[in-house]
């Protein structure tokens, strides 16, 4: 019927066998890649509903603030209650089988539902420690400060971020308009379609032109790069011709006259910063934004695009000057500006922001505790210290005096950002030394008007609140 298999057939079989084994090995490497590179992202993906599915008989844990005040808990009838309601909604987020989840409710879903965290890296062994009750999640947020920030924004649209400048811990993260997480599922149709986007956490996801609040950063890197020195005198005639028929004007038609870099910051001189940015050029601006890692997004417990940087190659001369005063195509989030403020108060060091402090099992054992870590970007140390001094003067005698608090070292920078959606956005970013704690903050009011008038008083309120 058939002959003996010859050597050539053995060779063919081995070749084919190696090919098949090679295929399996490729697949194997690919799976390993998914586990290692994308595992975290897939585990915490908004559409991954694993954390939502209640294990039968497991009571969902509480979300607590840094002092143990309850931000979210499940009552006896199984209803999830949020004592701070809309004020803390950007922090807590919401949860519901039909509507999914967001915020800490989403990020810490595994811990809250008593399941071993996929991040624990001890695999099935973690099941031994799982409980009939979910873990409580303690945040870095101060509920009183959160409430004060929310109240200060009032019925204006905007966001407030307060960070612990030394650790990057989020002390408050308010965003208005907000929604009541308790009734989110009932009103889902309404809140998910509202024109004023109540579900949008403006602190993390709102992208706005930074306006003059970008100037401290530009000043620091221009000093570092030798584009300017502290003694140079700019002559501000009120208008800067940036070529191509475009000009940069001072707000309210002011004329600053002869100004140094210090005065250019305290008086927020557009002509000086338009000039400085033009000197830095595309490459200077590009290396500045990458030095503070504004080209990287933040994922995990606080997910934020951080910033939307301009397409450098397409920038005209006028646009380069515009970026120096925080306009043109540069967009940033309030969180990013708070991080920048933190850098100036922190000798240039920026910390990676975080919000989940501890995960505490129902038996009171702390199963995980946050470790502050540095952000990948930073500001050069010497220059950061110089600018920090300038920013103190902004509050003492410049555009930011509305944030002045007697007896407290407050630094800041105002911003009044032109935009296409109407009235200017009001910004105020800065730091303060309160009760032995250094805080950094960013306040933004959409279409609020002048930063020094509208945003700076909110910062002052918060500092007073903390005292």
């Amino acid at each position, binding site marked *: 019927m058939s002959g003996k298999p010859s050597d050539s057939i053995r060779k063919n079989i081995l070749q084919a066998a190696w090919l098949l084994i090679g295929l399996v090995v490729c697949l*194997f490497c*690919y799976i390993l890649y998914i*586990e290692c590179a994308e595992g975290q992202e897939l585990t915490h993906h908004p559409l991954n509903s694993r954390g939502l599915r209640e294990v039968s008989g497991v009571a969902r844990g509480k979300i607590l603030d840094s002092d143990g005040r309850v931000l979210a808990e499940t009552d006896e009838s199984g209803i999830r209650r949020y004592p701070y309601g809309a004020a803390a909604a950007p922090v807590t987020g919401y949860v519901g089988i039909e509507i999914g989840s967001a915020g800490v409710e989403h990020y810490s879903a595994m811990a809250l539902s008593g399941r071993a965290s996929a991040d624990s890296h001890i695999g099935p062994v973690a099941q031994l420690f799982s409980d009939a009750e979910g873990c409580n999640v303690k945040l870095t947020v101060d509920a009183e400060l959160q409430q004060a920030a929310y109240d200060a924004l009032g019925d204006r649209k905007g966001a407030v971020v307060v960070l612990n400048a030394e650790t990057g811990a989020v002390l408050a993260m308010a965003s208005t308009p907000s929604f009541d997480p308790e009734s989110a599922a009932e009103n889902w149709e309404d809140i998910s379609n509202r024109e004023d986007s109540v579900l949008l956490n403006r602190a993390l996801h709102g992208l706005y032109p930074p306006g003059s609040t970008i100037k401290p950063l530009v000043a620091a890197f221009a000093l570092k790069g030798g584009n300017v020195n502290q003694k140079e005198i700019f002559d501000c005639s009120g208008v800067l011709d940036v070529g191509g028929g475009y000009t940069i004007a001072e707000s309210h038609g002011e004329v600053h006259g002869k100004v140094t870099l210090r005065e250019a910051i305290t008086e927020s001189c557009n002509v000086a910063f338009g000039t400085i940015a033009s000197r830095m050029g595309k490459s200077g601006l590009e290396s500045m934004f990458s030095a503070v890692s504004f080209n990287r997004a933040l994922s995990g417990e606080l997910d934020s695009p951080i910033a939307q940087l301009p397409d450098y190659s397409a920038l005209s001369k006028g646009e380069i000057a515009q970026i120096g005063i925080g306009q043109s195509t540069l967009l940033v989030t309030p969180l990013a500006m708070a991080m920048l403020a933190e850098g100036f108060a922190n000798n240039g060091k920026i910390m990676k922001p975080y919000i989940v402090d501890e995960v505490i099992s129902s038996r009171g054992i702390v199963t995980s505790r946050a470790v502050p870590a540095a952000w990948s970007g930073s500001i050069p140390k010497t220059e950061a210290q110089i600018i920090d001094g300038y920013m103190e003067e902004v509050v003492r005698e410049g555009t930011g005096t509305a944030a002045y608090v007697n007896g407290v070292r407050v630094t800041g920078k105002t911003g009044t950002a032109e935009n296409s959606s109407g009235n200017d956005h009001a910004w105020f970013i800065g730091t303060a030394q309160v009760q032995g704690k250094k805080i950094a903050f960013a306040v933004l009011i959409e279409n609020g008007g002048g930063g020094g008038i509208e945003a700076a008083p909110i910062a002052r309120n918060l500092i007073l609140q903390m005292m």
Partner: protein
Amino acid sequence: MLERSGVQLLLGPVLALACGLGALMLRHWPGIDSTVLALLAAVVVFMLGTEIFLSHRFRRTVKFFPIAVFLSCIGLLMTARLVPALFKMQLCWVLVGIVVFTSVVMARKKVLALLDYQYSLGALCLILLILPLLFGTEIGGSRNWIALGSITIQPSEFGKIVLILFLAAYLADHRQVLTENLRRFFLFETAPLRFIAPLLLIWGMAMLMFVIARDLGSALLFFGIAVFMTYMATGSKSYVAAAMLFFTAASAVSYMLFSHVRVRVAIWLHPWQDPSGMAYQVVQSLFAIGTGGIWGVGYAHGNPDIIPAVHTDFVFSAIAEELGFLGMTAVLLGYLFLFYYAIQTALLQTRLVYTLIAAGCGTAFILQAFIIAAGVTKFLPLTGITLPFISYGGSSMIASFLMLALLTILEKEGNERVG
């Protein structure tokens, strides 16, 4: 008697099965169906008994069976955990599979004699493939089932075995004409059409399945088996190149003609564009794999049941979530060992036809595991197909044990010649 048997190889899987099921049962205590326990005991006894009996009879360790036991124990564990209602049926299928396996191995002379009827085998293969096209019932989007009363059969699972037997016999018989006196035909060197006609017929059938029955997985598997076996027998790169060209052309044509093919490709390329709609299954499967991580979340502690069809086509994702990368590796290694022994067995044979059968069966196992594992991990476009021995289902289980029986027969055959 026990020393020579591979019974110690079975202890691990059987113990794991006992522990896992024990944990599940404690959870549902005392609401346990005693017939399930009896069936379970029967399955374990048959597993151990078959290995001891065969090892004793063949006077050497039977290698293939322990691997099948390992994989089916994992399959039983996953079925019990994913769809408890089907656990009893799966136990029955494993039991039937083992009985079929033992019977076929015992009747090995008769089975090998079947190879003399190669054209009948070819015809049978075609019939098995055409049956569902004519009388098929559509289940889960694929028209590859035949319903006989309350039982549904997937003829393609069995068609696969007949295909291997037919191809082995045909290729062994016509090796000379297929490799000598080749004529140039465009860029390819081929034998005259009448000799390669059966091969073309098989390729064409695979494509028909692809297009009409929407059974992309089986089509890919059939095609792959045919191409690999042809290369093994002839070593001709022309045939492989021709097959690839044929495959590419057919894929391109069906991509243009059929929306379901375009949908599959779109899901594969851009799963995140419609993660809650068409790509739901694949996206959920990726979530399961990502959540599982290296160690897995633990048996019966995950949520793989979110994935549709998790107990059949997507059982691999459930293993990835609950048993982790380690569990997944163990399963893939199981198939690799099966393949390795199959190739070893193939090389031991003194008759070409046996060599090709052993290599073909090995190829079928590894290719099938690869196709579905690659599909659920989004390595390749998803094509629904079962994971041998592990997925729930009778046709798949029995067909896998039949192929295992062929390998075991040939292992015995090869070792006898070598002495």
